[in-house]
C-alpha cells in the first residue's frame, strides 16, 4: 500500500501528523459553508419552504467578499482585526482536535484547557468588535455573548475534566483513544459527560433556544451588525467555521468511531468521508432539536443552562462513584 511514509521520505511522524492537522483545518474551513447551507435548507423544510439550496452560503460568501465595505467612523482597530483573529483561532482549534485521527494531530495544542481558552479568545474579540463598532445592538449582543460564555464554560470544563480524569490525561486525543478502546472505567459517567458536553456545544454553536442564526441583531450574529462587504464575508465564514469546529470537537472526543488509525492515504481518505458523514448526521439531529424549540427570554437562559450544568455534575458524581 502506498502510504505517507514513502511519499514524504524523510519526514518524521510528527511532521506528517502536522500535515494531517493542516489538511483537517482546511477541510473544515472549506466544508463550513456547506454545512451552514444544509442547516438553512433543513430549517426551510421544517418551515415547509423550498429553501435556498445547500450551496447558497458559498454564493453569499463570494458575493460579500467582492463587495465594498462600509465602516462606521467610530469603529477602531479591534473591529477591523476581529475577522482575522477569529479565523486564526478557529483554524488552530481545527488543527488540534482529534477529528480525522483518533489522536490529536498537534498535541501541544490539543489539550482541553488550551482548546477552551482558544474558544474564549474568539469570544473576547467577537464581543469586543461589537462594542468597538459603536452600534447599540452590537453592544448589547456583546454583553449577551460574554454572558453565555460565563454560563457555558463551566459546563465544558467540568464535563471534559470528568472524562479526562477517567482517561488520565487532559489531552483530548488520549481521551478519544480511551473512549474508542472502551477503556473508560465508568460508561454511565462517560455517557452523561457526553450529554453535558453536547449541550454545551449546542449552546456554543448559537442554536435555539439560545439564538436564531439567520436573524441578525440576536445573540450570535449581533456583533455583526456593522460589518459589511469583505469583513462581513469573513465574519460569516468565521461563524460557520466556529460551528463546524465545535461540532467536530464533540464528535472527535465522544464519538471517535470509524476514523483513521494509521497514516495511509486510504485510511485518511476514509476518515474524511466518515467525518463528513458524522457531521451530516449531527447537523440533521441538531436541526431537529433546534427547529422544534421555542425561543426564551434571554434572562431565563441561566435556568436552561442549569440543565447542562446539572448533567455535568451528575457525570462527575458518577465518575467519582465509579459506576
Amino acid at each position, binding site marked *: 500500500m502506498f502510504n505517507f511514509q514513502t511519499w514524504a521520505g524523510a519526514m518524521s511522524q510528527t511532521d506528517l501528523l502536522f500535515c494531517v492537522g493542516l489538511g483537517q483545518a482546511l477541510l473544515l*474551513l472549506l466544508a463550513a459553508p456547506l454545512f451552514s447551507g444544509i442547516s438553512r435548507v433543513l430549517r426551510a423544510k421544517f418551515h415547509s419552504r423550498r429553501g435556498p439550496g445547500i450551496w447558497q452560503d458559498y454564493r453569499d460568501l463570494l458575493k460579500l*467578499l*467582492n*463587495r465594498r*465595505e*462600509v*465602516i*462606521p*467612523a*467610530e469603529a*477602531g*482597530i479591534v473591529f477591523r482585526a476581529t475577522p482575522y483573529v477569529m*479565523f*486564526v*483561532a478557529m*483554524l*488552530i482549534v481545527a488543527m488540534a482536535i482529534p477529528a480525522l485521527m483518533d489522536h490529536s494531530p*498537534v*498535541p*501541544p*495544542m490539543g*489539550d482541553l*484547557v*488550551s482548546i*477552551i*481558552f482558544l474558544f*474564549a479568545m474568539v469570544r*473576547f474579540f467577537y*464581543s*469586543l468588535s461589537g*462594542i468597538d*463598532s*459603536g*452600534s*447599540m445592538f452590537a453592544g*448589547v449582543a*456583546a*454583553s449577551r455573548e460574554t*454572558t453565555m*460564555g*460565563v454560563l*457555558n464554560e*463551566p459546563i465544558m*470544563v*467540568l464535563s471534559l475534566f470528568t472524562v*479526562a*480524569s477517567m482517561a*488520565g*490525561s*487532559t*489531552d483530548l486525543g488520549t481521551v478519544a483513544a480511551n473512549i474508542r478502546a472502551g477503556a473508560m472505567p465508568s460508561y454511565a459517567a462517560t455517557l452523561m459527560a457526553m450529554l453535558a458536553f453536547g449541550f454545551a456545544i449546542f449552546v456554543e454553536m448559537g442554536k435555539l433556544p439560545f439564538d436564531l442564526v439567520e436573524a441578525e441583531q440576536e445573540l450570535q450574529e449581533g456583533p455583526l*451588525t*456593522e460589518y459589511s*462587504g*469583505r469583513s462581513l*464575508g*469573513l465574519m460569516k*465564514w468565521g461563524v460557520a467555521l466556529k460551528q463546524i469546529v465545535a461540532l467536530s470537537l464533540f464528535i472527535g472526543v465522544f464519538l471517535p468511531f470509524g476514523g483513521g488509525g494509521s497514516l495511509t492515504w486510504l485510511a485518511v481518505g476514509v476518515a474524511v468521508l466518515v467525518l463528513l458523514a458524522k457531521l451530516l448526521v449531527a447537523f440533521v439531529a441538531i436541526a431537529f432539536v433546534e427547529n422544534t424549540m421555542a425561543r426564551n427570554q434571554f*434572562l431565563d437562559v441561566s435556568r436552561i443552562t442549569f440543565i447542562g450544568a446539572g448533567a455535568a455534575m451528575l457525570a462527575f458524581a458518577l465518575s*467519582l462513584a465509579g459506576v
Partner: protein
Amino acid sequence: MSVLALLATAMALYCFGAVGSLLLRRWERAATFVAGVSAALAGGLGVVGALQVLIDGTGPSFSAPGPFPFASFTIRVDPLAALLVLVISLVTVAATVFSLSYLRDYYGRGVGVMGFFLNLFIAAMIMVAIADNGFYFLLFWEMMTMTSYFLVIFNQDREAVDAGFLYFFVTQSFSMLLMVAFLLLFMRSGSLDFAAFRAEKLPTWLASIIFLLTFFGFGAKAGMVPLHIWLPRAHPASPSHASALMSGVMVKLGIYGIIRVAVDFLGASVAWWGWIVLAFGAMSAVLGVLYALAEHDIKRLLAYHTVENIGIILMGTGVGMVGIATGKPILASIGLLAALYHTLNHAVFKGLLFLGAGALTYATQTRNMAMMGGLARRMSWTASFFLVGALSIAAIPPLNGFVSEWLTYQAFFTASTGPDFTSRLFGPLAAVMLAITGALAVMCFVKAWGLMFGGAARSQAAAEAGEVPVTMLAGMGGLALLCIVFGLGAPVIAPILSRAVGALLRAGSVKVADGILIFPGDPHQAVLSTPLMAALMICLLAVPLLIAAIHRGHRVAPRIVPEAWACGYDHDAQMTVSAGGFVEPPGFMFRGLYWLRTIQGPAAEVLDGSVTVATHAAGIVEPVWDEMAVGGSTRSVRFLGRYLQAMEGGDLRVYCLYILAALGVLLIIEAR
C-alpha cells in the same frame, strides 16, 4: 558583582532617591527626576541580582550581629526570595519610568515627599522578601505598611483619607496575628532566626495554630476575601504608579508570607491546610471578579481583579500544599509552580493595567469608564498596550496569563486523578470555579476595553484626549512586552521556576519542559507549546489574508459612514451600551452573590462605625489623665492668680499701701 553587592547598591540607590527627592522637594521637576531615575536604576540592579540567583538555583546569605542582642540582622536570597525581588524590581522599573511624566499632574502637591515614601516603600518590600529573621521581617513589614499608607492618603481628599484609615486599621490589626505567630515560634525555638524556625519540629496542634494565624495575618495583606475590604478602596486612592506597585507587588508579599511560613517553616504537613487555602482562594477568585464586573471606576475594577488573581494564586498554592501533605511530589511542584508563575505574571499585567489606568486619568482627568470611549483612535499606543494587558489577564493564549492558568488547571487535574477521594472531589470543582472566573474576566475586560477605547467618545474630555508622553508609553510598553515574553518564553521560564520550587521543597525539581514544550511533570497528561501556538497563529493568518486578497473587496477603499446604524434614527452616543447595561445579565443571574457584597458593605460600615466610636471614646478617656495629673496644679495656680490679680487693682494709692505694709512687716521681722 555579587548578588549581595547588587542588592546593597540597589538599597543605597533607593535611599539616595528617597532622601534626594525629599531635599529637592521645592524643585519638583528635579525631585521627580532623582526619585524616578534612582529607583529605576535600583530596580535594574535588582532584576540582574534576582535573575542570577534564579538561574543558579541558589543564592547567598549574610548575617551580622546588629544593634539588638535578641536578633541578628540576617539576609538570605533563596530562589523564592529572588523571585519576589524580581517581581518587585520589574514593576519598579516600569512604574518609575512611567512616573517621570505622569507626576506632572501632581506638581504643586508635594511630589518630593511622594518620591521619598515611594522609594522607601520599594526598599522595604525588597527587605521583607530577603530578611531571614523574624524581628527584622516584622520591622520591614511595618515599614512597608507605613510608607504605603502615606501613598494611599496622598490625595488628601476625604476618599483617600478614609481609605488610608481603613487600610491601616485592617493591615495593622492583622499583623498582630503575625507577631503572635512569630512569638510562638520564638518560644519553641529560642531564636528569631528563620533558620531556627525551619529546623523546629512542632506538634501538629501548635503548627496548625501558627498556620492559621499567619494565613489570616498574611491573607489580609494579600487581600483575599473576606479580608479584602480595604483593597478596592486603598489601591485606587493612591497615584497610579504607586497603585501599580501596591496592587501588582505588595499583595504578593502576603502570598510570599503564606508560602514562607506554611511550606518552608511548617512543611505543609497537614492536608486540611491546603484545602483551606484552596477554598479561600476559590472564594476570592469568583467573588473578586464578580464585584469587579459591577465597577465603573477603572481603578476600582482593577483593584477587584487583584482580589481575583490573588485567589487564583492561592488556589495553586493550596493544591500544591495538599500535594506536599499527601506525599505527591508532582502535584506539590506543579501547584506551587503555577502559583509562583501566576505571581510573576499578575505583577506584570496588573502593573501594566494600572499604568494604563494612570495614562487614561492623565489624558481624560476621570476614572469613570462611562465618561471615556473612543480613545483607541486618539491614544492608539495606550490602547494597544492596555489590550495586551487585558488579553493577558483574561488568560487568552498565547500570553502569560494563559500559561499560568493552564498550569493551575493542570495542577487541579493532577489532584483529581489520584486515589484520594477528597482530591478527586475538590480538584474538578476547583477547576469549575476557575472556569467561571476566567469567563467572567473575559466579560469584564471586554467591557473595560470596549467602553474606554471602543465606540464613540462619551464626554468632552474623552473627545479631546491626546496620547500620553513617551516615558509613560515606555513604562507600559516594557510591561506589555514582558506579557508576551513570559507567555511565549514559558519553556524557558517554567524550568527556572520549577527549580525554585524544588529548592523550596528541599527536593529535586520536577521536569516541566523539553525543547519548546511545557508539561505538568508528566508529558502524557498534557503538553503545551506557546511558541508553536504563536508561530502557527502568524502562519495561519495567511489564510484569511489570502481569502481577502484574492477577492475584489479590497480594491475599493472602504466607505466610512459617520455613525453606526440606529434603525433610521439619529445616532447618539447615549444609545450605545452603558457600563451598567453591559453587566446587567450576570448581575441578574448571580444576584445571590452580589447580595453577599451588599451585606458586606454594612460590615465595612460597622467597622468604620466602631472605629469612630473608638476614637470618640479615646477622646473622652484621654483627658481624664490630663485632668488628674496636670489639672489639679493648673487649677490651683489659676485660682491663686485670680486673687493676685485682685490685688493688682492698678490704683497708685493701693500700691503705696502695699509698700508701707511690706515695710511694716520687714520692721517687725527685724525687730524680733
